[in-house]
């Protein structure tokens, strides 16, 4: 499983927004990669930079005010940050596709579902005949489990329910067999029973078509059920990365631990929820030290002045916390022995 080829490699990505208050880094020097056919989750609370990360990969960061200032995004040995808009357009939809949170705003209300699906094929497959395009569109609609595909082609978005619209969006994203599908909060606007159907569909398509999926969400339950590997983000930084099992069973970063404990679990009743004190910092307000230090119960003097690195604790598990710095661990062991 580990020999699968890396398909998307993000290195030292920094995306900033230039406002009247100066440069605000929404995503600050993050590294991650997705392997072929893998489901990678990015979790974090609002303002942690998870959506800006996905928009950066797609080259969709609104500019101005936003700009990728540092780093590279390698896809099939091409650096996406260096491509022109025209070159990028050939990749978007073709090799990397994206679905968004609110399916109603991503579909044009004035065109039928068929028009919109056909348009997406037409742009990328210029030499296809009308019949081929139509067949491809219907094939995809059936693949995502939409009933009476032929009839739906003639309908308008408002005639569909939220779950069906999201299925149409997924069909549209998969029309050109992308290698990577970025799903930004794909089920947040949907009800739980519909959410379960859509997550199942995404997982199923990932297995059948071997499309790598980058799933961005704030819901830890969704991550636990669908992803193989997880990245936890906080205030523009990756704070922990590892296989889903390790993140949930053996979380290391105090933020990940706090987050997991503060979720009310439906299976049993906790007397009192653990809550992380304080608020998520506004992007750009913390410049030195660990960004979580102010809310962290384990913070010590070093956390306030120095910026922690990602420390590798196991082969596939990394944490951005001084508690896992080999130097600190040694020092700690020494004090334990002394006392």
């Amino acid at each position, binding site marked *: 499983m580990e020999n699968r080829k890396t398909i998307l490699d993000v290195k030292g990505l920094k995306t900033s927004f230039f406002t009247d208050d100066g440069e605000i880094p929404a995503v600050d020097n993050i590294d991650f990669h997705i392997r072929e056919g893998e489901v990678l989750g990015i979790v974090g*609370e*609002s303002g942690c930079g998870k959506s800006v990360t996905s928009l950066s990969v797609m080259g969709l960061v609104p500019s101005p005010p936003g700009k990728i200032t540092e780093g590279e995004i390698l896809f099939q040995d091409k650096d996406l940050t260096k491509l022109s808009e025209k070159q990028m357009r050939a990749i978007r939809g073709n090799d990397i596709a994206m679905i968004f949170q609110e399916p109603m705003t991503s579909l044009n209300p004035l065109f039928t579902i068929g028009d919109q699906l056909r348009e997406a094929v037409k742009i990328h497959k210029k030499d296809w005949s009308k019949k081929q395009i139509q067949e491809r569109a219907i094939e995809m609609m059936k693949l995502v489990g939409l009933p009476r595909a032929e009839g739906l082609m003639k309908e308008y978005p408002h005639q569909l*329910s*939220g*779950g*069906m619209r999201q299925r149409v969006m997924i069909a549209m994203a998969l029309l050109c067999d992308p290698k990577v599908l970025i799903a930004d909060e794909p089920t947040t606007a949907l*009800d*739980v*029973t*519909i*959410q*379960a159907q859509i*997550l199942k569909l995404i997982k199923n398509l990932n297995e059948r078509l071997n499309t790598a999926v980058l799933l961005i969400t*704030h*819901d*830890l*339950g*969704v*991550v*636990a*059920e669908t992803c193989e590997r997880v990245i936890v983000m906080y205030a523009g930084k990756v704070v922990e990365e590892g296989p*889903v*099992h390790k993140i*949930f*069973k053996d979380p290391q970063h105090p933020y990940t631990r*706090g*987050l*997991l404990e*503060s*979720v*009310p*679990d*439906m*299976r049993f*009743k*906790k007397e*009192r*929820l*653990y*809550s*992380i*004190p304080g*608020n*998520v910092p506004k992007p750009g307000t913390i410049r030195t030290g660990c960004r979580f230090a102010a809310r962290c119960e384990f913070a010590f003097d070093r956390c306030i002045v120095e910026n922690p690195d990602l420390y590798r604790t196991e082969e596939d598990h990394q944490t951005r916390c001084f508690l896992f710095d080999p130097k600190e661990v040694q020092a700690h062991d020494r004090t334990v022995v002394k006392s």
Partner: protein
Amino acid sequence: MTEPLLRVEGLKKYFPIKSGILGQVKNHVKAVDDVSFTVNEGETLGIVGESGCGKSTTGRMLMRLLEPTEGKVIFDGQELTALSTSEMRKVRRDIQMVFQDPYASLNPRHTIEKILMEPLNVHNLGDPKERKKKVYEFLEIVGLSSYHAKRYPHQFSGGQRQRIGIARALMTNPKLIIADEPVSALDVSIQAQVLNLMQDLQKELKLTYIFIAHDLGVVRHISDRVGVMYLGQMAELADSEALYEKPLHPYTQALLSAVPVPDPDFLREEVVIKGDVPSPANPPSGCRFHTRCPFKMDICETTVPIFAEVEKGHSVACHLYEESRPQ
């Protein structure tokens, strides 16, 4: 048994669908259709359901922010549905509401002091000095500081704004608080803070809550009893322990099995339901859930199941349990 604080009987809300130039009423959206329940003093009743099930409409009708089409709401021995508008306004001192969106429910042009003082002015409670003192007192109670009083809503984060929303609801010393999705706009770490605050306040001030939400985990955490709504009707109502451990209605079972659990090892019992919620303008005949129910029988298509107790304190509207009912 003592009289419950709130008793709701056969509550209905039909919204007319008008069309044509003359605005003729063509049909009705049956947003809430015959809902009955009681809330005891000091407890938390959770109401869950998917979008469009009528949970928010129910909450609003209890305060008569929406006029019920039919049915009775009896609060503290008083029939609210029979009161005049001015009498109702007095009762609202005892029933307060906390809304979902802390961004939209606070006036951006007013300072926090003015926002919190408003309910006291409306109900004419205390003199200006006492009112001011009370504002500061409640800011501290909800975990803010008195110096926040001079600030404006935009200077606060989402969690802090929801604390202000809760403080405003508490200003008139209400008995019942109706909280409509109070934490769904908040991040997980902030959500936990607000839920803990609500629990602490309940203990301290002996409050009764009706907690309307779509998040089943949150509802289990905070509620003593939970009602599950589907398409304008109550499908099941029980103690939260019983409802989550032994759900009876097939819809409750499906709903519970659909919730993603933050544990990669968790093996679920899958109860899959197909399709979407039907339109409330044209609900299915018989049991409203029969179009999606995995245990559908013939009777479900024709006869509306009665919502009644199957076990003590556990009511369900489903034909599967018709025989096990105490006669």
